[in-house]
């Protein structure tokens, strides 16, 4: 019987044929936490009397980075001390977002990766079984090198066609979530396939895998191909390449086909990600702050699109435009390419690499009644730090176009 990608990866890791629904324990190739979930992981690690980590273990300070208050500074010390005591490795303030650094430096096709952050599924774009878990789960992954999981059933998401000008990967995933709902794939593995994959860059795939969890999915997987090789080569890691693809006769619980050439730019309205509308239905929504960045859309491809729209233009006077590169590596690249110049000249404020306003912890907290248009992955009430504000989600192109006009704007109007 044919296997899905998930079944192949988990079978390989357990050295037996796994079937959906089965509860297994599986060896973990990489485990990580961030400054929001990490302190609790360390408490649990100590309570469980573990002394050292049994798998590749990372700690990221990316959420409240740099720290805005003493309580957080004190918990960040705990993370640094943990890494000094064990062989876990720290990525401190300024290094960037966990998921971005994991794909740049660590995630390999076929790996099992667990992170105490829901968007750990980002690495699925590289063909890794990567999923978000809680603090205690990662404490156990650190200490035992294993986690327990139930093998998920898979949905095959078939993407066909070409994207029209002004439409991007973010629009595909917002469209899919709008189509199936924020619980449309709860517990399932999403496996992407179809002709369109040939044209989807690795950075675009990362955006799509990142948001698999917003449809409830455990993981969002892409098969490996030339784009995977190219990406690993860029980061000097071609030796990490391995072919991963589903068998032709793999069994999927559901097949969803999408002709991506019919998708127009999407906007998710407050307060759920699946409250998605076509931009042609969006009229006269004045925005107070635009945020471009996060683990969803803070990569070079995103920043280049934004720069192409903002070049020699100014943001609307009443809008605050905040931009954060997803990692130090991206920040330096954007500097060298002159993108940061373009952003600052257009009136943007550059934030340090990290999660930024998406988590409502430090930079860019909204005032009562204000509206944010963001490239982030979530718009739940209070997400950006104030429950009396509203968050709209869109692509970097829509965000850049909106920054110029001050109203939610179709990027196709400025790309003409």
């Amino acid at each position, binding site marked *: 019987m044919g296997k899905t990608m998930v079944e192949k990866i988990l079978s390989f890791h357990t050295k037996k044929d796994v079937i959906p629904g089965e*509860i*297994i*324990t599986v060896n973990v190739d990489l485990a990580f936490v961030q400054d*929001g*979930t990490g*302190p*609790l992981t360390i408490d*649990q690690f100590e*309570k*469980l*009397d573990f002394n050292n980590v049994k798998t590749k273990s990372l700690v990221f300070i990316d*959420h*409240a980075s740099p720290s805005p*208050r003493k*309580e*957080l500074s*004190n*918990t960040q010390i*705990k993370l640094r001390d943990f890494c000094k005591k064990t062989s876990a490795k720290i990525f401190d303030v300024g290094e960037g977002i966990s998921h971005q650094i994991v794909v740049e430096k660590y995630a390999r096709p076929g790996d099992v990766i667990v*992170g*105490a*952050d*829901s968007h*750990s599924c980002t690495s699925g774009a590289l063909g890794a079984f990567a999923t*978000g*878990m*809680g*603090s*205690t*789960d990662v*404490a*156990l992954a650190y200490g*035992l090198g*294993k986690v*327990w999981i139930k093998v998920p059933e898979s949905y095959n998401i078939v993407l066909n066609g070409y994207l029209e000008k002004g439409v991007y990967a973010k629009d595909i995933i917002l469209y899919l979530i709008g189509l199936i709902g*924020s*619980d449309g794939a*709860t*517990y399932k593995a999403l496996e992407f396939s179809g002709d369109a994959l040939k044209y989807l860059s690795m950075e675009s795939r990362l955006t799509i895998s990142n948001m698999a*969890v917003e449809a*409830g999915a*455990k993981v969002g997987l892409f098969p490996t191909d030339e784009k995977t090789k190219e990406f690993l080569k860029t980061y000097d890691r071609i030796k990490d390449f391995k072919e991963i693809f589903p068998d032709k006769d793999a069994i999927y619980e559901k097949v969803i086909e999408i002709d991506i050439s019919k998708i127009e730019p999407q906007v998710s309205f407050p307060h*759920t990600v699946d409250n998605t509308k076509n931009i042609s239905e969006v009229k006269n929504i004045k925005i107070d702050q635009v945020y471009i960045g996060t683990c969803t859309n803070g990569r070079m491809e995103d920043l280049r699109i934004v720069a192409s729209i903002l070049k020699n233009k100014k943001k609307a006077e009443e809008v605050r435009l905040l931009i954060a590169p997803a990692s130090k590596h991206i920040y330096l690249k954007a500097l060298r390419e002159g993108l940061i110049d373009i952003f600052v000249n257009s009136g943007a404020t550059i934030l340090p690499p990290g999660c930024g306003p998406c*988590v*409502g*912890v430090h930079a860019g*907290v909204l005032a009562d009644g204000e509206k944010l248009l963001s490239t982030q992955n*979530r718009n*739940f*009430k*209070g*997400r*950006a*730090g*104030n*429950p009396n504000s509203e968050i709209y989600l869109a692509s970097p192109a829509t965000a850049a176009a909106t920054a110029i006009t001050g109203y939610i704007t179709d990027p196709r109007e400025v790309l003409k």
Partner: protein
Amino acid sequence: MLKGKVWKFGENISTDHIAPGRYFHLRSNLPELAKHVLEDSREDFPKNVEKGDIIVGGKNFGLGSSREHAPRIIKVAGVSCIIAKSFARIFYRNSINIGLPVIELKDNGIDEINEKDLLEIDTEKGIVLNLTQNKKYTFIPFPDFINALLEIGGIDKYVKKYNGYGV
């Protein structure tokens, strides 16, 4: 056997509703963080919730972040159990891992349950009794592994006792 009075919540209660990001600095102090649990959905909840109370939610309860603090502060606040039409995956897993029973009631049970109803729940047999309305609902009982986790009070205690997952 669990027994408690109902607090009703709507659909899509996210972990940002349960443990708002603006209290990020309180995450290492669960009793303080619990003073704000679910306050963005119902201001009266953290003030008036009592030990043993039961949360009844709609579909996709707990969607969003992996923050284990969300089910933990619900437990710290005294809630004995959450019943919902469906749960988000990570929240469900975290709840089981910390020994907080989470029950999916798929039929019309959720819509019929009212605020302040008194419920009695048998997690092993899979029965919810609404003592106020004299109604009975059933759910599929947990598999043995989950029951054992809940009984011992969480995966940390389980792993310590069995020297591993024992799966």
